[in-house]
């Protein structure tokens, strides 16, 4: 659902010191300037590889963990149409995870290792999935606004320089457009429905407003680090630019339906720039650290999956060959 851009501070400092062969680096950067795609066996700076792994892996985890809050609503979806759309959507998200793990594996990190890092909390995933989906209206808000935000991010990154990631994202964006359509449809049904449906939707919009503002991450337009990632087309837009694009496209659509956001300062100025109240970035960092409302639950479910099915993976691995085959 989402390709994240969060880099912990201490990691940023470490990365400043990686040295590369200047000739190779120049050649690499020239290819990027040319609009060429970098492929798995091409030379690439260590930091490029590392940042891509981090980013694709975070994105993959977001798809898998992101399937959980919506997944719990499949059994409760209120009609055949909504039920079918929701199962198909959640299934797509799992498929996105699969595509992205494959893309990350081309850079040298195994799916098993990524899963392990997810469970230990070493790898991150999008903060939005650490908030609960309390009512059916949350499913509509996620399907419409969270998927829309993800699309802004993913469309931008699909033009990035790493071939396997960019191709995975193209396919993902194609499927995401259906999610957005179905999410919008479910959202409008509630917005134009009975009084209790509208109230349920407004409540969900209120609760999701801050996580949505947080979604694109804190401002990074002045960061040296971002400059380099953009130079290498790992990151295609700053967090602020993506957030602004999202707000421009979707805030008016929500307002048109007679709904509001719980922020009196939310407005667009004459230059097309959106302003909003301080969204409490402390909360953002707390959730990343694992202190959000659902972090523990999400990881508990994922680790249940890992232990519950261990016997299956062991059986598939062919136990008789296990000790004689080389591990890599």
């Amino acid at each position, binding site marked *: 659902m989402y390709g994240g851009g969060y880099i912990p501070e201490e990691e940023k400092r470490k990365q400043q010191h990686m040295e590369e062969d200047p000739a190779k680096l120049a050649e690499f950067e020239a290819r990027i300037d040319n609009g060429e795609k970098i492929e798995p066996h091409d030379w690439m700076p260590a930091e490029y590889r590392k940042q891509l792994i981090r980013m694709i892996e975070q994105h993959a985890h977001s798809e898998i963990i992101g399937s959980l809050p919506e997944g719990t609503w499949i059994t409760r979806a209120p009609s055949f149409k909504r039920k079918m759309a929701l199962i198909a959507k959640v299934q797509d998200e799992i498929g996105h995870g699969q595509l992205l793990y494959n893309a990350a594996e081309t850079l040298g990190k195994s799916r098993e290792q990524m899963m392990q890092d997810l469970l230990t909390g070493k790898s991150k995933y999008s903060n939005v999935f650490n908030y609960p989906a309390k009512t059916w209206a949350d499913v509509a808000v996620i399907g419409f606004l969270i998927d829309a935000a993800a699309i802004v991010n993913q469309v931008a990154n699909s033009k990035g320089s790493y071939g396997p990631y960019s191709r995975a994202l193209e396919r993902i964006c194609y499927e995401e457009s259906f999610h957005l359509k179905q999410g919008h449809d479910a959202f409008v049904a509630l917005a134009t429905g009975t009084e209790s449906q509208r109230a349920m939707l407004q409540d969900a919009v209120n609760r999701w407003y801050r996580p949505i503002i947080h979604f694109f991450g804190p401002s990074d337009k002045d960061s040296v680090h971002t400059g380099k990632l953009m130079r290498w087309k790992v990151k295609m837009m700053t967090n602020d630019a993506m957030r602004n694009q999202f707000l421009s496209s979707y805030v008016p659509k929500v307002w048109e339906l007679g709904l509001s956001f719980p922020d009196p300062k939310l407005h667009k100025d004459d230059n097309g720039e959106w302003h909003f109240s301080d969204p409490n970035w402390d909360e953002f960092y707390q959730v990343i650290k694992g202190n959000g409302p659902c972090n523990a639950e999400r990881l508990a479910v994922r680790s249940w999956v890992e232990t519950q099915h261990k016997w299956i993976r*062991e059986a598939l691995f062919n136990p008789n060959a296990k000790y004689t085959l080389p591990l890599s």
Partner: protein
Amino acid sequence: MEATQELLFKIADDALIMGHTDSTWTGLGPTLEEDIAFSSMSQDKIGHAWNLYQMLHDKFGLADADTLGFKREEKEYKCSHLTEVPTQDYAYALVRQFFFDHGQFMRFSALKNSSIEWLADFSRKVTSEIKYHTLHGDTWLKKLGAQGNEESKARMQSAINEVFPLALGYFEEGPREAELIEKNIFIGEKALQEAWLEKVGDLVAQYGLTLPEGNTVDPSLGGRNGYHTEHLQPLLAEMTEVTASDPEATW
């Protein structure tokens, strides 16, 4: 007329409740690939139910599909007990899928020759889909049975022992069985069960597992007559939680 409705309801209810029960695995499957496969099968099943309720609406003037699927009393559902039991054990889920889909495949294969033309047409369409479901079940029973390790074999065998009585209940006769057979609408549950037992018995043996002796097992009966396990009521309550919160609303 009523006999045909009874037939359609039981097939639709089976598909809906099985699809519902299976959909609880979405996001929780043993591998991502299998997660996708399993949730795709539950989608197909819910889709079949939707089609069948739609036929009940179109051909017999009953309520619309959503009302038939989501707004009946527990007693009015005619699903078999096999579909109702929740599970957190994937061996159970796989064995049930194997039994159920071979049943569905043979049921719809038989209905291809139904004297009711539109039912025969529909059955032709869905058998090609359900064929893939049976292949899925076959592959997994083989992988975790004959090709698996001791633990996986033991787990699959105990799941077979546990699910088998429920699977036999899938072939419980409905009150208007004789009329369906007489009018060549459906071959009847007895004939279906016989063919099914032979087929799954052969397969299970091929996969290094065993089917309990039919005559030592009490089939779990009642579903086709509206008598359900204790699991159906909470399942329906969950399924209708949202719609019940505002019965006037459309969603």
